């Protein structure tokens, strides 16, 4: 139907290119978004979807390429320009003012005059009209901070519609929603479409693509790799396109010889500050001498899982056992105590958790072990030992430049990461928690870090590896858990897994998937 329209497409992107330093975020991207359609854009983390939409919404300038809106070339320098062209965006993280009412949030920036009273009357009438038209179900006088997440999202949609947006971009809109709220959202999107507006839906959930869109673009590594009419494709093909046939990281590793269970997680639950469930009755075990990979699109609870296991956050229910020691909500342990139990943690966020960027390398190499008898006497730190330790780590892990007194910020990402990995492996931990060990790390360092992890596995460590890079999981893990929406939705042995199947599970297309679901 949309293809038959003689009218120009709502959006046309021509050869968009964008680099951030050495990262080529968008590479010659061209898209045509038909008017009155719902178009999906799918891709893994880092595929360039969000960058592309930020360019369309005026947050970034493209390095080259053109944007046409309704057939007219458009210069979108800031969100204001985008709004004028009728482009509205619903961000993944809402930009709402909590103490304000819905009405005030909607009016902000479009008050309709210097005095609020007249504008408020008009806005209220307009909101009522939008309410009857779209059935969003939000009370204009409700205070944002008191609304559930789903309703806050509908306020964001309302803001865009109020400004007359004819093109609505939604960035991962269902990440924070309950299934019921997601259903409601898709009904609203259908209504919006029926009224002639255009919707761009960015998501990694294939089921949503299949259920809601007319057309879909698949992005990978900054480029568009496929464009399909939704009715002519299926989840399997999309998963394959999304993941691609990557150069397999080959690691000659011996088969695992798992021993006793060192880490046991039972029924762990956690909610975030807004009350959204981030860990939903999670349970699994990791045995000595094996690497258990946790696959999943980022933001599905993996970060919180690692933080709970490391003692940074306290779970609300359940029990974590390290060897014979049990950690429960009633008897939690802090990160220092977890370290004493032999749990080491390579954190996902290397700049904010893993090291202190303003510290010298020697100091960052001490983080977490500052009270250790080897580095601290009764009063004074043992600087000689600390410096020797750092120098040894640098030597062993080939951290460059070999300058223990250089500030951590001045090392490249790969060398920072090698320093952290070196620090955490130095104790031969019994349980090793690893988050995104090779994010932003160059190829050479990746291989080196992977080899180190395998060596420690073979030496008997129980390793839990969280990564959004499927090929990393495939290369390292002996067993794979898949997380989605805070739950473990599936578990497969490495030799039974293929990327297509994992991709489907990560996208929550087929929960459980044949292989035995955990717990």
């Amino acid at each position, binding site marked *: 139907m949309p293809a038959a329209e003689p009218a120009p497409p709502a959006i046309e992107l021509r050869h968009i290119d964008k680099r951030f330093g050495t990262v080529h975020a968008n590479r010659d991207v061209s898209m045509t978004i038909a008017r009155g359609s719902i178009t999906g854009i799918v891709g893994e983390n880092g595929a360039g979807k969000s960058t592309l939409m930020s360019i369309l919404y005026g947050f970034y300038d493209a390095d080259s390429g053109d944007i046409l809106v309704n057939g007219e070339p458009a210069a979108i320098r800031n969100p204001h320009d985008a709004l004028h062209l009728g482009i509205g965006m619903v961000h993944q993280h809402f930009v709402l003012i909590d103490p304000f009412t819905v009405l005030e949030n909607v009016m902000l920036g479009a008050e309709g005059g210097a005095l609020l009273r007249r504008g408020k009357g008009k806005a209220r009438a307009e909101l009522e009209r939008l309410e009857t038209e779209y059935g969003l179900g939000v009370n204009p006088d409700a205070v944002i901070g008191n609304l559930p997440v789903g309703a806050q999202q509908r306020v964001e949609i309302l803001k865009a519609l109020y400004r007359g947006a004819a093109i609505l971009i939604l960035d991962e809109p269902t990440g924070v929603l309950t299934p019921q709220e997601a259903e409601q959202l898709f009904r609203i999107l259908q209504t919006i479409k029926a009224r002639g507006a255009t919707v761009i839906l960015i998501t990694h959930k294939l089921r949503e693509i299949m259920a809601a869109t007319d057309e879909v673009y698949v992005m990978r590594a900054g480029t568009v790799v496929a464009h399909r009419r939704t009715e002519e494709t299926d989840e399997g093909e999309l998963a394959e396109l999304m993941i691609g046939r990557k150069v397999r990281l080959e690691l000659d590793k011996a088969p695992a010889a798992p021993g006793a269970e060192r880490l046991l997680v039972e029924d762990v639950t956690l909610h975030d500050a807004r009350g959204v469930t981030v860990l939903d009755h999670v349970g699994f075990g990791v045995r000595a001498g094996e690497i258990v990979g946790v696959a999943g699109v980022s933001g599905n609870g993996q970060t919180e899982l690692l933080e709970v296991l490391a003692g940074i956050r306290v779970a609300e229910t359940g029990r974590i056992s390290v060897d014979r020691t049990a950690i429960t909500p009633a008897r939690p342990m802090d*990160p220092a105590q977890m370290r004493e139990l032999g749990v080491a943690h390579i954190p996902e*966020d290397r700049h*904010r*958790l*893993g090291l*202190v960027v303003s510290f010298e390398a020697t100091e960052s190499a001490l983080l*977490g072990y500052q009270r250790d008898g080897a580095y601290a006497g009764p009063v004074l730190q043992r600087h000689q030992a600390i410096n020797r330790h750092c120098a040894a780590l640098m030597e062993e892990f080939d951290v460059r430049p070999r300058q223990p007194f250089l500030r951590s910020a001045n090392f490249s990402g790969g060398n920072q990461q090698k320093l952290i990995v070196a620090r955490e492996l130095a104790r031969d931990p019994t349980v090793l928690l690893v988050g995104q060990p090779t994010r932003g790390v160059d190829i050479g360092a990746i291989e080196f870090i992977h080899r180190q992890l395998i060596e420690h596995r073979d030496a008997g460590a129980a390793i839990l590896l969280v990564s959004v890079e499927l090929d990393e999981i495939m290369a390292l893990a002996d067993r794979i858990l898949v997380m989605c929406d805070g739950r473990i939705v599936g578990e497969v042995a490495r030799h039974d897994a293929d990327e297509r199947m994992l991709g489907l599970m990560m996208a929550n297309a087929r929960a459980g998937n044949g292989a035995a679901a955990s717990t």
Partner: protein
Amino acid sequence: MSRTDRNVRAPLPRWADVALIPVANVLLALLAAALIVLVIGENPLKAVRIMVAGALGDSQGIGYTLYYATNYIFTGLAVAVAFHAGLFNIGGEGQAYIGGLGVGLALLAFDHVLPLAALIPLAVAAAALFGAAWAFVPAYLQAYRGSHIVITTIMFNFIASALMVYLMVNVLIAPHQMSPESREFLPNAWLPTIGSVLAGLGITVERSPLNLSLVLAALACVGVWIYLWHTPWGYELRTVGQSERAAVYAGVKPRHIILVAMAVSGALAGFVGVNEIMGVQHRLLLNFNLGYGFTGIAVALMGRNHPVGVVLASLLFGILSQGGAELAFEIPAITPEMIIVIQGLIILFSGALANMSRPFFERIFALAARA
């Protein structure tokens, strides 16, 4: 983002960060001060000459300069320690006041029973304890009740001031005394002057208020340096100040650090009381703390929160204070309050506008790198 990238910039070498920019900021502040002197119609260069001569020209001038610097070292270190924990302690003024109260109470209570050798550690401990206690309350409220430490410490300055007036006027005033002052301590509770110590060694210097507190200040500098950079507790304190999340990752409890850092900070500020009450005034009185707490902010900002920098900045402010008094004598149009102006300018340029000159230097270094 991409739009600003077009300006050519280069990251600065560390020496520029540590030395060049701070010095440039102080020079900007002094330049602004010189402009003010010009506006008044005086010659800034002549003013500088008089000040330096007054502050460093003879042993008395040096004595006064070091006496002022002693107080600035205490309050500068106080601000610096809190800063390393990511806290802004504006309460040095009040903590110094209450620290002095502690010294006074201890000496009034024990000066007729204990010898000097026992009174010195007692007074030092009292100053530390009282100063720390006055800082601990805002710290506790920040850590456990979420009230902002800046506002609370400001309020505590005023509360300290009211408390001291009340105590001096109603409780501690000496009998038959008109002004609100306690009785004078017995001479065995006077901290010896450096002059008297040197005289014992056969060296004579002119009279000045400089006393053994200078030694305490030196010890405090070394102590802070050891604490922050050579103990695991200092390491943890700095980690919290740099990155609270990294600290939690490392098993540190930020709330504990807030309490400890503020207590240490308050104790350091309290040492002003040792210098003023035990070293100079030999009695408890009002307003002996005036301005030292706030100058500490300038000292810490200028000294980049490092003991060495704090000493250098304290010496500069000592010279300004003593030289300024001399200056007011020679050029009546320039009053001692000129020092306060310079303090304000230094806080402005070294603190709030600290990064203003950075793009300029980044461009210079980029050009130099290309050439």
